[in-house]
């Protein structure tokens, strides 16, 4: 019989080996603290949390999740423990809800090992709290009981831990949140699930083609040579109060797509010839995107198989060598040498077979890359691809953008394009710190900063070139004017929203402008009143490039920047930071969430990106234009021309 507890009620536990199930409306962090007879948590080692998930008799999950199963063995707890408090907290800095009031009420159940529920408790009535102690298991006259607590804390984990008498509560709370966010921040986000209509539908960042007043319908520019079939974008404007339009805003018809090219049947005994676009998708764009992610996964897994086999071969040889050394019979004659020879030969044989399989896989992927790379559209292509020379500014937003290349040490020549979805879901941080990587440490600091800014300019130029004209603006903050050289191509082509902002006044005015935009669009989206936005508001996507952070930033500006990083991506304002984390070290850990929320890339090759399947360290190669090439200037000139033609 399940006891459905209300706040404050207690219930006797019939057994000591238990499981505590947690389900919540959004991912939560689950942990547990141990208390002595006075209810005091004696130290950090009395807390099970994602950064330190196991204690004797207690185990919690290492990550935030909407469902948890905590294993508890009350018999195995130290004698001095009289109380176990189960706590839940919302993860910080990962873009989820920040208060329990906006999520479904969490539910916890104490069950036996066979899954039968002993007691359950629904934590209703939470509001601004971001951490809550859900249940207490406590000793009473030799028996264990459970009590429903439901005490929430608006200031989060730190306040809760401090309330339980823990010294250093704030540091520990930060380290718990850090542990939760770490796995998230260090990995490339997996490709989002594919849904036929869900792809490429732009988020409500305001109407993409707004009519300032409803009486004046937006007109497509009459004399636009590159826009022969463009429809006014009215379909994508949210219609307040009206029925939701599920149709793709720009897709003209729902006819099935042309079938993808498939590889011709393989000759017997040979691998099939690869073909570009050999994947599912509604357009060539989407097929190539899926194919590249497929190659990325295949390479990660092929390398995992090889590394696992080599590790195994090494460890088996080590064991056999140890054994032959400890065998007294091997001390005389050549028996020992023979045994060692044999162990080495076995290792070499297995390693060679694993290498053979890997080489076969790599050759197949290299052949595929050789046909895919030339077939890529500009947004996915490297700067050396001829497609850039004939580039015309598109009328439709492509699905993804290439940020650079990835490769593994097994074959450094096999490059996988690193594609991120558009509109950007995460800001980008080009790390100009010298301690960031080995290659960076070899360069002097000025050279590295210049390289970082040049890389950032390439990313910004690529974004400008793949967005439809007028739907993307770039703002630059360069407080000390130190990046005038690298920024020259953007400035000369007049593609920036304004001159690079310098000095504290410049910083403040750009940030104020973007903060206002985020604020207004957010209000309009929440109220469902997109047409009430002021007519002077640019509702296209915005990119803010920040150089030399935190130079020229006062506390207010730092706060505004963090606000943009948190709230901006959902309403079309993105960050591209070029910064050395050391420069901002004076701010201490308060900026850590900002750095974690950004995708960190480097101006020189560096092996710091993890794939989402196995977690190998991939070497990231930043984009470069071919030496002596004018491709950047040509592309930016095309952006200017397209804008002029579109009348913006």
């Amino acid at each position, binding site marked *: 019989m399940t006891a459905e507890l209300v706040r404050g009620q207690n219930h006797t536990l019939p057994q000591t080996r238990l499981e505590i199930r947690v389900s919540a409306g959004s991912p939560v962090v689950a942990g547990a603290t141990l208390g002595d007879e006075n209810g005091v948590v004696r130290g950090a080692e009395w807390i099970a949390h994602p950064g330190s998930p196991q204690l004797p008799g207690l185990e919690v999950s290492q990550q935030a999740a909407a469902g948890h199963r905590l294993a508890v063995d009350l018999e195995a707890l130290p004698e001095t423990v009289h109380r176990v408090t189960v706590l839940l907290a919302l993860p910080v800095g990962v873009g989820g809800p920040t208060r329990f009031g906006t999520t479904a009420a969490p539910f916890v159940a104490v069950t036996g*090992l*066979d*899954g*039968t529920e002993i007691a359950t408790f629904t934590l209703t009535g939470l509001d601004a709290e971001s951490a809550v102690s859900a249940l207490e298991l406590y000793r009473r006259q030799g028996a264990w009981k459970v009590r429903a607590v439901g005490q929430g804390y608006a200031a989060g984990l730190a306040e809760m831990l401090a309330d339980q008498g823990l010294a250093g509560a704030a540091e520990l709370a930060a380290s718990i949140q850090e542990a939760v966010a770490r796995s998230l921040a260090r990995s490339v986000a997996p490709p989002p699930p594919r849904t036929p209509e869900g792809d490429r539908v732009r988020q409500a960042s305001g109407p993409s083609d707004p009519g300032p007043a409803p009486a004046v319908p937006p007109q497509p520019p009459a004399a636009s040579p590159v826009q022969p079939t463009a429809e006014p974008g009215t379909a994508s404007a949210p219609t307040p109060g009206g029925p939701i339009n599920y149709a793709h805003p720009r897709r003209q018809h729902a006819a099935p797509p042309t079938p993808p090219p498939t590889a011709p049947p393989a000759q017997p005994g040979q691998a099939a010839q690869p073909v570009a676009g050999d994947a599912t998708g509604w357009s060539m764009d989407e097929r190539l995107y899926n194919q590249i992610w497929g190659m990325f*996964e*295949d390479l990660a*897994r*092929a390398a*995992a*198989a*090889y590394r*696992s*086999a080599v590790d*195994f*071969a090494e460890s*088996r040889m080590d064991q056999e060598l140890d054994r032959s050394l400890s065998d007294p019979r091997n001390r005389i004659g050549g028996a020992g040498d023979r045994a060692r020879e044999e162990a080495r030969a076995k290792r070499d044989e*297995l390693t060679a*077979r*694993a290498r053979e*399989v890997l080489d076969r896989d790599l050759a197949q992927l290299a052949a595929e890359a050789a046909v895919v790379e030339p077939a890529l559209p500009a947004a996915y292509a490297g700067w050396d691809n001829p497609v850039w020379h004939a580039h015309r500014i598109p009328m439709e937003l492509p699905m993804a953008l290439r940020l650079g290349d990835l490769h593994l040490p097994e074959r450094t020549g096999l490059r996988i394009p690193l594609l991120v979805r558009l509109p950007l879901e995460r800001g980008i941080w080009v790390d100009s710190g010298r301690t960031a990587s080995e290659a960076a440490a070899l360069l002097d600091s000025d050279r590295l900063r210049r390289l970082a800014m040049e890389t950032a300019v390439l990313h910004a130029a690529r974004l400008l070139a793949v967005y439809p004209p007028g739907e993307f603006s770039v703002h630059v903050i360069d407080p000390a004017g130190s990046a005038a050289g690298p920024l020259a191509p953007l400035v000369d082509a007049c593609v920036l929203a304004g001159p690079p902002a310098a000095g504290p006044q410049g910083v403040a005015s750009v940030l104020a402008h973007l903060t206002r935009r985020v604020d207004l669009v957010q209000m309009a989206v929440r109220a469902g009143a997109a047409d009430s936005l002021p007519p002077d508001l640019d509702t296209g996507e915005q990119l803010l490039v920040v150089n030399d952070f935190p130079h020229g930033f006062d506390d207010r500006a730092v706060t505004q920047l963090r606000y943009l990083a948190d709230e901006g991506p959902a309403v079309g304002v993105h960050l591209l930071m070029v910064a050395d984390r050391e420069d901002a070290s004076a701010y201490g850990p308060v900026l850590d969430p900002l750095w974690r929320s950004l995708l960190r890339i480097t101006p020189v090759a560096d092996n710091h990106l993890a794939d989402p*399947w*196995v977690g190998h360290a991939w070497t990231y190669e930043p984009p470069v234009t071919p030496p002596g090439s004018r491709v950047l200037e040509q592309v930016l000139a095309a952006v200017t021309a397209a804008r002029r033609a579109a009348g913006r």
Partner: protein
Amino acid sequence: MTVNMTKGQAINLQKSDGGTLTAVRMGLGWQAAPRRGLFGSRTREIDLDASAVLFADKQPVDVVFFRHLVSDDGSVKHTGDNLVGGAGSGGDDEAILVDLQRVPVHIDQIVFTVNSFTGQTFQEVQNAFCRIVDETNGQELARYTLDGGGQYTAQIMAKVHRAGTGWRMTALGNPANGRTFQDLMPSILPHL
């Protein structure tokens, strides 16, 4: 033709035309618990879980189960956790696919297990079976019936192991008790 396997029986995983198998599926099916009364949510659901453990020379290297659905090398894939069972009409409710050609060279045995996560013994589960299917043509190679199997919550089903250049399957059918594959490791090791 389906072989109803008995304990300890070994079969070569070869096609009838002599070609070697390239992909096999371990399927697991069981009938959902009957709905209890008016409040269907109080039904005591039966959650069986299929797992596969990859061994290299008797050392576990990788495990595929409901928390880790694809082996790191990509050769073994779990199609997803089913928490309640199905209609009990013989369809697979959980399946593990093995691409034998992609199994890393050092992996020499793959052991398949079934556990009752919610703790019901196989006696209480209706119409439970597991089977091995040739994934390329859907032909059933072997089948076990699990229900009525006594006071056990787990079974070490079968192992697929290298023999010469091909693969061989041995039916193990060893009952055990445990909630996830971790509990079963001591019972698996004697079978390697």
